[in-house]
């Protein structure tokens, strides 16, 4: 009996395959496009990263040398440090501020729509244009920021012109630019929350803080994690603002991975080294995404 069932099942499968076969051709366009646009460049990048390849001279296969050189390259290692420093600040602060803003804008008050629109304006602007405006504001003599500091009696700062303050100053731009983005996501989450738990909490005389911490926060957590993932990936990949404001300087004080990569590929024409950096960068992003996706699973309502 069992054998007969298997035969029938096999027969069915065969029939299914026969029925599908003419349609298999339809896979080809997608397959060709994705191998041409994704898989080929990918494999080619791996290949380039294994070669000593400088535009204008012969390429030489060097195995893992490019990677080993990176391991001892001070500038590369520092750029990883800068990337982490920048990412932590540029993720954490917009997350906190964005959540707070979302809580405020979730309340009903006069002109809420108008202020919400105003608040998300920065996000709509082009990062390079924003960066240029900030560059002017950071200017140590003519900038408005130092003027404001002197008005309230504080000493002027060097902002992006000093190695110690450059990254926090850049984070300031990121906060201004991306807090609205976090706010929008969290606001969407808040709008979808049920009202019953709050009613129950009110009956139990809970404080505002207790309601936030025990109800709002756990319920909105999945949205926070989504915002966190997107912000983290964006912050890791930061390029335009830093490039436009200070070019990775002063010196190499704000050189993040992407800027280092750009210098290797397009300023020094070191295609091999640049490809190796791409691979390392890619590995970091994938690893981090996996961690974050795992966190997202954890944060799901169960």
């Amino acid at each position, binding site marked *: 009996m069992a054998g007969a069932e298997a035969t029938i099942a096999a027969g069915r499968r065969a029939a299914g395959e026969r029925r599908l076969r003419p349609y298999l051709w339809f896979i080809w366009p997608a397959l060709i496009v994705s191998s041409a646009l994704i898989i080929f460049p990918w494999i080619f*990048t791996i290949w*380039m990263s294994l070669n000593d390849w400088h535009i204008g*001279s012969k390429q*030489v296969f060097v195995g893992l040398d490019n990677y080993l050189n990176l391991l001892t390259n001070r500038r590369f290692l520092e750029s990883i440090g800068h990337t982490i420093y920048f990412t932590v600040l540029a993720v954490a602060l917009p997350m906190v501020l964005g959540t707070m803003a979302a809580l405020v804008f979730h309340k009903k008050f006069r002109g809420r729509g108008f202020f919400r629109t105003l608040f998300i304006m920065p996000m709509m602007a082009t990062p390079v244009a924003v960066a240029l405006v900030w560059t002017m504001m950071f200017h140590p003599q003519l900038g408005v920021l130092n003027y404001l500091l002197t008005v309230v009696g504080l000493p002027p700062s060097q902002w992006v*012109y000093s190695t110690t303050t450059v990254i926090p100053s850049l984070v300031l731009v990121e906060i201004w630019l991306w807090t609205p983005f976090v706010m929008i996501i969290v606001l969407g989450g808040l709008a979808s929350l049920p009202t019953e738990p709050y009613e129950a909490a009110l009956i139990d005389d809970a404080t505002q803080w207790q309601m936030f911490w025990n109800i709002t926060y756990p319920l909105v957590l999945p949205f926070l994690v989504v915002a966190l993932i997107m912000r983290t990936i964006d912050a890791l990949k930061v390029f335009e603002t830093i490039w436009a404001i200070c070019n990775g*300087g*002063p010196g190499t004080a704000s050189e993040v991975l992407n800027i280092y990569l750009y210098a290797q590929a397009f*300023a020094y024409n070191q295609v091999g080294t640049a490809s190796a950096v791409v691979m390392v960068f890619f590995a970091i992003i994938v690893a981090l995404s996996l961690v974050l996706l795992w966190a997202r699973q954890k944060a799901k309502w169960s």
Partner: protein
Amino acid sequence: MIRRPITRRRALQGAAAFSGLAAPMLNTVTTYAQSGAFNWQRFKGQTVEVLMETGPRADLMKKYQKEFLDQTGIKLGIEVIPEQQARQKVAIELNSGKPSFDVFNFAFHVQKRQFEKAGWLQDISPWLKDPQMMPAEYELGDVSKMGMGFATTSDGQINALPILCDYFMVYYNKELFAKKGVAFPKTMDEMMVAAGKLHDPAAGIAGFVGRGVRNANVVLWTQMLSGWGQETITNTRPLKLLTDTPDAIASAEYYKKMLSSYGPKGVTGFNWNEAQGLFMQGKAAMWVDATGFAAPVEDKTKSRVVGKVGYGLPPSGPKGHGSVTFGTGMAIPKAAAHKEAGYYTMLWMTGRAMAGRMLQVGGGIPFRTAPLKDPAVLSTLTVPKEWAECAAGCAPLSMSGLPVIVPVTEFRDTIGTALTNLLGGADAAAEMKRATAEFQPVLDKSEAS
């Protein structure tokens, strides 16, 4: 990041196909032209694609292209791109073997060694000797030795024509000097003292301004280094960096002291345009940079210091007296489609008449002496005569400001980072030694390959 996988063979095939296409046409033209001597109309009817970096040369070329068309019957397709992007485009397209341009301009101190090692440029030395290809009016003999030196490769080919040279000079604000009763400094020590007297942060005035931003700052430092009579690398191969010698460290100390004590706040972010901006606002007493800025500084619509600017030779240092010099040239790729017509375009652009026009508008100094002495040119200068005299005075002081190597951008970034760190308070000896140790292997590798 994705490079078209064009092999050397494919590139050669492409080039061969191109020249194969062009050859019959050229033959007919040549037979026609053999009847006379040099003839501007010889390559009539062709269209030449030109890639120019943004700047006064590109503007001049656009302005006078009609004249060139009337004179030669060659039509120009001019593409103008900012310097950095143009350099990338040129490298990538030449490497691909199918450049979209027949003629382009480039900086000898940045790209020369790369082009020469890759063998991308057409050797034009036979044409320079051929009376059919070299008109007397070009005055080849008047092109300075240094210019021709820039255009000559290490194996003796000539693969470019020099168009412009840039010396470093001192721009100074005569009004501020007079107010503080300071005389223009003759030595670098005097310059430091003068900067101290002129520096007045309360009034928002910097005693000295110059490039502080990574990469660009290297040339200001090499200008100071020339005061110690030294350049950045040895003249003989194998090339050794000279950026951590006692003299190099002393000049780095000088750079650090000058900019951090008497420079404006935030000078670590200054390139030439920020420095120019401050100087034109009348907020800086001295500015050391290349010769090409007289035009904007004397432009009433942009500058507040018109008529108050003095132009002086760089002061002499404890061990030498130099003015670092940079050259720009024009060249034809080996793979170009219209080499002969492209060469004519070069002759016109780098020739006597256009050199005079470039000088007149303060767009730069040609690698020629005649226009600098030509009363017809000098009488129509749109910038002060003092500027032209100063530039002529820089010529005998000329020293190389950057090494002629392939990874020159990386050199500038590495040394430039050290210099920027100095402005942040780091120790000169430690920084220069570290940067030198970091860059020497890169240099060795590039010379070995």
